[in-house]
């Protein structure tokens, strides 16, 4: 894990190449060191197959979210960062409201950045777990397809869990 960014750094040596990522939602542009951006498998594939021009357009991801993604990649491309530092930095990046987290997890998925996908999914899971099921439905737009009878049956099935069990 820790050696990956170093390898990529060596690969791009000696000159420091940069890439420009452009959010197609609000046309914000970010200039990023190539080895930082290449943590995205999607971008790496584009670069490897020479599909990447001077500016890489990133559809469906806003500048605000792209900035978070780049922050994550920068942290993880720093070979001198300890695991502890990275954990703290990751926690800071995902300390957002649930709607931002949903955008972030979609971005991590689209750009194919495994680590970011994992920490964001974990944070979403942590947020979901303490929510009443009605709120989960509302936030994620899940349709309640239970009849009242079915819902009562599921509730009864897990009665023990609703009796103040932690």
């Amino acid at each position, binding site marked *: 894990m820790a050696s990956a960014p170093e390898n990529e750094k060596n690969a791009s040596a000696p000159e420091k190449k940069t890439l420009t990522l452009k959010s197609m939602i609000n046309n914000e542009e970010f200039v990023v060191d190539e080895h930082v951006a290449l943590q995205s498998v999607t971008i790496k594939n584009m670069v490897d197959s020479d599909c990447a021009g001077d500016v890489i357009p990133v559809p469906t991801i806003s500048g605000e979210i792209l900035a978070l993604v780049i922050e994550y990649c920068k942290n993880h491309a720093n070979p001198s960062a300890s695991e502890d530092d990275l954990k703290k930095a990751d926690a800071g990046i995902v300390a957002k409201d649930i709607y931002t987290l949903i955008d972030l997890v979609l971005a991590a*998925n689209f750009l194919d950045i495994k680590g970011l996908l994992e920490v964001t999914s974990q944070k979403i899971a942590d947020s979901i777990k303490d929510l009443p099921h009605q709120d989960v439905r509302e936030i994620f737009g899940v349709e309640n397809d239970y009849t009242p009878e079915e819902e009562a049956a599921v509730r009864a099935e897990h009665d023990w869990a609703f009796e103040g069990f932690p």
Partner: protein
Amino acid sequence: MTDQNSTTTSDPPSSVLLPNLPDHVALQCIARVPCSHHPSLSLVSQSWRSTLKSPTSTPPERSSAAPNTCSTSTSGSVPPSIGSKIYVIGGAVNENPSNGIWVFDCRFNKWEMGPNMRVGREFAAAGVVNGKIYVMGGCLVDNWARSMNWAEIFDPVSGSWAAVPSPIEVRDKWMHASAVICGKMYALADRGGVVYDAVAGEWGEVSTGMDMGWRGRAAVVDGVLYCYDYLGKIRGYDVEEDEWKELKGVEKGLPKFLCGATMVNMGGKLCVVWEGKKSGKEVEIMCAEIEVQKEQCRGLSGSVVWSAMILVVPIRSSIVHCAAVGL
């Protein structure tokens, strides 16, 4: 499940789980919710319910090493496993027998508290028959409640405990070992032991032959109970023949003394886990997978499929139990 490689689309397939996320991303999130929260979340929708119940809801990560952070430290607990979960039942907490159970879900590397037993136990016997956990002994039977609940059954689906009626003469206190063979649960006590036929609901005594040869932590493969005899051999016991036989053919592939040897049936193979080389501050945990066969007249034969170091642990650690889980 879904096509996870198509990351080029700007219009991800809508998920029935979380409509604003693609299915595999939604699963990543839902799979990370601790199982104690599953009941309330299964009320979100029918697809949530089936996802949370389904053993195939793919894990975000596989556990490769043994769990190391149970929230309490217990001794004399027993750990049967069902599917991807290991149930750590009872055991002494601050020298008091606990009625708590801890559930470790190997898919998510998470410990959760389960519903309490009706009585506290340490050094009880536990086994799984038809997806239900049977627990017996490990408690004094000095009052009515403890006598009635000397044996209990846990249904992991409903999450509830119930008493299993037992005759008074079988109610021993400490149990040293237990195993399930062909739907019957065998538990060894100080002298002799009990066998409970979970299907017929009948109790009986363990034969002297079985009792004499049974040493500690055993595993059942293909109806044969295997254990390490502490003299350098693995022996197998066939209930029908009431006889212990040496497992032949494994001498070359295994060290003579398997310190702390524990066995488990892993997918029909006999897996032996033992404490190997100690160096400085660490102990190597070794594992061998053995294919075993019952041979007519000639006894039991085995061949070592592989044998390797699988883990390095700090020097003070020892193998307490071994459980096989499905991921």
